[in-house]
């Protein structure tokens, strides 16, 4: 039986890991206890393994499949953390997926771990998906916390393409992009999806079922408005909408989400700055500004929340494009009348439109109607209101 891609393409070196691992490496070297948090498939465990390889440390591991009650934790973490290794090798300890430590069976495990964190001679590294889990409240005080962000979809694409090349699989860029975006930054999911969509050495991504956590624009609004995080801008990679559309959505929903005037002002101020970068992109054709547009837009709005209390909000679809279209329809007649009039009265159409109400009444006089040759629709427009 062939190996799954996940096994086969496990990262070989620390450099293969699509995360910034230097800080983690440094902290481990300095014997810090560390809590790594991040969504699944962001290479938390792999990073720890590869760091152990790089530093040539012996890695001891406790994961969800081990019983993690007090004795077990003490046996593995406690004793090892005091003894030196048989071969005089330095050691590090990995407690993977700490939230798997459950009440009954792992009774006392958490306290044992907390004690071990204080006494250990070797760095203990803990991983979790959820930093806000009640159970790890105590632990958090004794560790340095590092966050692994969802993996950039461009990086995921690169990894997927490498695998395809290696396996002689035919692909096109759009399929790869689709898989990468679908994974929402979970590299493991992306590789699995890649493998499962291969039919006769070709990718058939059309049939691929979407992952549960595909992000709709409403979800993205929720993340941006509720997260209070500088990192919320990363969401824009995972939704099927461009920055202009996100801007429209934010614009519509800021006054719905926020009720504190200061928060509203901050949010619009950041939106205005994002828009300014957009106009600079257009003016200078320099797309490097897009990064700033993105951050001002999403993170800017996220961090605007200061005084507004969290509440459930149903986000509204932007109304502005529709309103603009409707008013263009309405104003088209005004424009065509002004154009006809402009030549006769030696006045710009702009001026006429601005002062339209000063013209409307006498334009309806029969001789005038005849002179400027208005059509029926234009006459109807004059008579409205």
């Amino acid at each position, binding site marked *: 039986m062939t190996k799954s891609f996940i096994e086969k393409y496990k990262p070989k070196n620390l450099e293969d890991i699509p995360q910034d691992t230097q800080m983690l490496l440094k902290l481990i070297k300095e014997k810090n206890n560390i809590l790594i948090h991040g969504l699944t498939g962001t290479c938390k465990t792999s990073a720890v393994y590869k760091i152990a390889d790089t530093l040539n440390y012996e890695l001891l591991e406790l994961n969800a499949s081990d019983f993690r009650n007090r004795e077990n934790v003490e046996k593995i973490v406690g004793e090892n953390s005091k003894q030196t290794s048989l071969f005089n090798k330095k050691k590090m300890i990995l407690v993977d997926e700490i939230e798997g430590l459950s009440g009954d069976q792992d009774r006392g495990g958490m306290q044992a771990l907390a004690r071990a964190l204080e006494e250990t001679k070797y760095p203990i590294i803990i991983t979790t998906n959820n930093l806000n889990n009640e159970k790890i409240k105590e632990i958090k005080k004794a560790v340095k916390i590092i966050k692994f962000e969802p993996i950039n979809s461009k990086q995921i694409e690169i990894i997927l393409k490498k695998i395809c090349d290696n396996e002689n699989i035919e692909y096109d860029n759009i399929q790869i992009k689709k898989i990468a975006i679908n994974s929402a930054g979970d590299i493991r999911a992306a590789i699995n999806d890649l493998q499962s969509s291969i039919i006769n050495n070709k990718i058939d991504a059309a049939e691929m079922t979407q992952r549960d956590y595909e992000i709709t624009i409403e979800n993205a609004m929720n993340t941006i408005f509720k997260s209070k995080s500088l990192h919320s801008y990363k969401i824009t990679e995972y939704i099927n909408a461009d920055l202009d559309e996100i*801007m429209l959505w934010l*614009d519509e929903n800021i*006054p*719905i989400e926020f009720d504190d*005037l*200061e928060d*509203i*002002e901050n*949010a*619009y*101020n950041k*939106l*205005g700055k994002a*828009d*300014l970068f*957009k*106009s*600079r992109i*257009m*003016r200078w054709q320099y797309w490097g500004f897009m990064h700033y547009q993105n951050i001002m837009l999403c993170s800017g709005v996220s961090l605007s929340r200061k005084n507004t209390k969290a509440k459930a909000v149903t986000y509204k679809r932007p109304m*502005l494009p529709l*309103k*603009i279209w*409707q*008013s263009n329809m*309405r*104003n088209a007649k*005004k*424009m065509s009348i002004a154009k006809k009039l*402009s*030549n*006769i*009265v*030696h*006045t*710009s*159409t*702009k*001026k006429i*439109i*601005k*002062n339209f*109400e*000063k*013209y*409307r*009444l*006498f334009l*309806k*006089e029969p*001789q*005038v109607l*005849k*002179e*400027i040759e208005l059509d029926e629709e234009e006459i109807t427009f004059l008579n409205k209101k």
Partner: protein
Amino acid sequence: MAGSSIWTEKFRPKSFDEVAGQRDTVKKLKALVESKNLPHMLFSGPPGIGKTTLALIVSKQLHGNNWKQNFLELNASDSRGIDTIRTQVKDFAKTMALESESPKIILLDEADALTKEAQQALRRTMETYANSCRFILSCNFVNKIIDPIKSRCAIFKFKPLTKEDSLEIIKKIARSEELKIDENAVNKLYELTNGDIRQLQNVLQSCSSISKTITENEINEFAAKIESNDIKEILNLAFSKKFLLSRNKMLDTILNNGLSGIDIIKQIQREVMEFNMPEEKKLNIIEKCGEIEFRLVEGSNEYIQLESLLAFIAKN
């Protein structure tokens, strides 16, 4: 061709002698036309005091019955950019003036609507066609015209009409159109239109299409009907912290009236001056207006930028 039924045209002066006010300018222009040696010219002054009228008269005096073939009227604020203007000028200027030894006249109205870059390009165009054409540029503010253009033009500064001149015009129309208009109505009309004869004639024609007898009341009613309090209401809502209502009202105002973002900012700025609040606050708002206007000039999204201005006002 029968005369126009629109009063601004029907009562537009057709010769130098009919022009109200601008006595010095008329005298000089008359002399220039007689000498048949015209320079490029720049007419500056507030709207509705005779700039376009005199340009038309100059052309008529020069070319008599053929004036229409030898006259091109362009509007800087309507033409899409200097390139459109250049093409139109090029096509018009290619031929020498028809059956006439005088140069053709190109009237470029609202020349101060052109950007500095466009004015630079215009300067070249003026030189290229100087053999066959003369430009008359009209503008409200002479300081918005770049120096190289000013130095190529004879500058005529048009003065606001005196009240007597305006009243004379009203009386003339009243006689011709058989209107009954009393003294108070005349004064009110003058006040309302502030010496802008184009507006004055439009308002007068509007009122007369309701009734041939015009009193102060008719004028007031009409003024109330066309006067817009939208911006004041938008600001009031913002000041009373009703941001959402204020924003929606602003969007409707822009969209219903086809206003530009700059129009709105200018009005906000004017209205804020009138509000009853500490001067320092007003200053802050006006500073913000300036920043937002700058962004609009740079090509930013009008709605987003105006909303941020409004949010700023509401917060303060």
